[in-house]
């Protein structure tokens, strides 16, 4: 066990955990931020995606010891009230089916649009390829990313 200082959604958190604990479980079990989801634990599904210094990262692969000193944003911190353009686009298109994968999808999409606010269709498909949606809401995700891009630019 060791003590780690984390900056999550612009707040400081101190946690006492094993240093190999993935950030995912620190968020979910210790800090009560359960919007970040567990899907595979091996970086294959994207359900656990968060922003680390603005980049989309798999929190199931990031050990807490590596996350110190970085600025972490989770779905709960993407906006105060769900007003981020990506969240709004998701609502407009009514993307979710079961909804379980969607916070990961939103985090991937928002980091991507931050870097490329005017993407082509194939850039969108490439960017979202790493996030599995078992309910196969892919058509709606694709459309919502486009709608969000329009809102941003």
């Amino acid at each position, binding site marked *: 066990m060791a003590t780690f200082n984390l900056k999550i959604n612009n707040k400081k958190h101190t946690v006492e955990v094993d240093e190999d604990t993935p950030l995912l*479980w620190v968020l979910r079990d210790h800090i009560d931020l*359960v919007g970040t989801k567990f899907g*595979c634990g091996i970086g294959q599904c994207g359900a656990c995606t968060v922003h680390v210094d603005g980049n989309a990262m798999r929190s199931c692969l990031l050990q807490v010891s590596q996350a110190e000193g970085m600025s972490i944003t989770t*779905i709960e911190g993407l906006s105060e009230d769900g007003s981020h353009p990506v969240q709004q686009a998701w609502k407009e298109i009514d993307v979710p089916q079961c909804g379980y994968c969607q916070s990961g999808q939103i985090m991937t999409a928002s980091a991507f649009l931050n870097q490329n606010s005017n993407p082509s269709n194939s850039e969108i498909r490439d960017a979202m390829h790493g996030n599995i949606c078992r309910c196969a809401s892919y058509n709606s995700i694709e459309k919502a990313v486009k709608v969000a891009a329009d809102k941003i630019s």
Partner: protein
Amino acid sequence: MNLSKQQTFSRRSFLKTSALASGGMLISFNLFTACKSDVKPPIDISQLNFNDFNAFIKISDEGKVTIFSPNPEIGQGVKTSMPMLIAEELDVPWDDVYIEQGVLDTENYTRQLAGGSQSIRLGWEPLRQTGATAKQMLVNAAAAKWGISPSECKASQGVITNPKGETLGYGDVVKEAALLDVPEDVKLKDPEDFTIIGKNTSNVDIDKIITGKPLFGLDYKEEGMVYASVLRPPAFGQVLESFDDTAARALSGVIDVVVIGEKARAHLEGDKKSWTAQLSKSDKVVVIAKTTWAAIKGKKAIKAVWKNDSELESTESHDKILLDLLNGEKFDTRRKDGNVKKAFANADKILERTYESPFLPHNCMEPMNFFANVTPEKVHLVGPVQTPEDAAKVVSNMLDRKLEDIHLEMTRMGGGFGRRLYGDFVYEAVEIADKIKKPVKMVSTREDDMTTGVYRPAIKYKIAASIKDGKLTGYHLKEAAVNINMYGLIPNFFPAAALENYQVDTVNYQSNITTGAWRAPYTNFLASAEQSFFDELAETLEVDRVQLHLDLLENVKNNPEPNIEYSPERLQGVIKMVVDKSNWGKTDPGVYQGFSVYYCHNTHVAEVADIVMENGNPVVKKVTCAVDCGVVVNPLGALNQVKGGVIDGIGHTMYSELAFKDGVPQSNNFNSYQLIRMGQTPQVDVHFVKNNIAPTGLGEPTLPPVGAAVANAIYKATGKRLTKQPYISNMDLEKVVG
């Protein structure tokens, strides 16, 4: 049933009303059974326990409406669409309606189950009646206040108006309405007058989902709760012999290591029907820890020794066994019309093909998990399960507790697809909680989930058609499946009744690998096989494949048959629609189309897949889908369902398979098991047939036909008939392309 005319219902009341201590009115009803006369609705809202009623509507003094949605949500949108039916007839603005998931425990509730695409079909009338009855009571109360007849009042959008133009809000009369008798006769709206049904309505949980609020079983927490990770046998056919937990216990965060299995086995011994008995055969080692991560690490540190208890099976041996069965004689005949034997004996041509499919895990995005707390007062259960009623009964039996002691709260589910119909994970959580006497959440990893599943079984079909003088004279389908065969009405699905000589035979092999329902059970591969066969059959007969179907359906119309559940007219309707909308036969060069049509889960569907070849590989670009599911209650949700079914179907027919070797599943996570991803996904173009027929399900019926639409398109592009799923691993493209 045609609903174009107004309907009047006169039947024994199936709902009760009461005034709430907190103000407002509570309408309690049982969806599918009449209420017993001796039960009383609760007066205090905190007392809602669904013992006698399975759904509630609360109307507050301010006229706000809360609907406690009775059905668990697995992503098929019933948490939105079922309340829409109530709100429509109650006639309130949708924006004033709040939806809450009901807390459901025990005895008298019926069909609290999400599966089989049946929720909306069964709820269509009772839910609308409930709304209409409540509205009538509010009108009656307002009329009494004004001293006029109810027929002189009008109610709309939560406001009641009298002939003088005076108005009362619903909230103004709830107190009085709660005390009135429940009217026996209520009129339902003419579908022309619907203002909520048929309108795009967002998922009721949308704001919570996009902001990451706790909604799912895995998100549930309670003070003092600990986590449990379960070590189960690595191979089907093995059981626990011994284990060493020294290393696990030494880990920080690990609280205890316990063994479970006895209680589930004792229960299952009496329950011969259990689908998941195999999963409970062995003792299991459970690591209890302060956090999920510590529990998972603890489980990995357990050194267990397993012993063989029954045969360790492999895909290779399954393949041989099923093919031998198909070529053998040990069949059950499920349907037999005319004389197939004679038709084949007299044929001048016979077309015969064998189609094969693998085991499939469900892979719900949210791995199996459940919360349990067993105390002397009650057994508190929280989590995602599609069959809460059954789960509660089993738990009461396992723990020898009264059914009233079992309080089961359903959470939103991160996918179901059939997996959460089985309660094995609930029983595990309960047995753990009973052992450790602490609130505990059992959490499966993806590896646990994929390797200790309840799989879609491997199935093979042999289909044969006899042809005489260029005409189709007979059709014989044989099914060999692991554990479970098609059942009930399925042998009566199309093409049954379209042919004079028709026979369906089934046979199975009993395996120790757990199998069960998987999205569109029984037909998810059957439709692929039959509709691929029909494509080849049309070619052999030298007739147009679309026309062949229209003609066969014409036969059904001319010889009506009572056992047939599908409607030949509605199937013809979707065929014509898909031909029109897909530009069938008129596409650009380089685009290859495949056609497929199917009826299941009470819904009629036709699909056309467009593929192109890119770098020697087939790429599905577009699927046009024509659906007749009756009234489309929520078009926005319906679109999601249809598109999801189509893409899911393509994914599993193209890419997914679970093989076994010596009882061990050969894939255990998404690096060794392929699910469809965005880059492989076509655009799905959906068209609904417009009519006023009572609605049918959408969660499943668009999945079965799509495999054949894709295979038939690939045939056009490559000249290669695909008969073995997953197609991508079983097509030798070098040989046929280029």
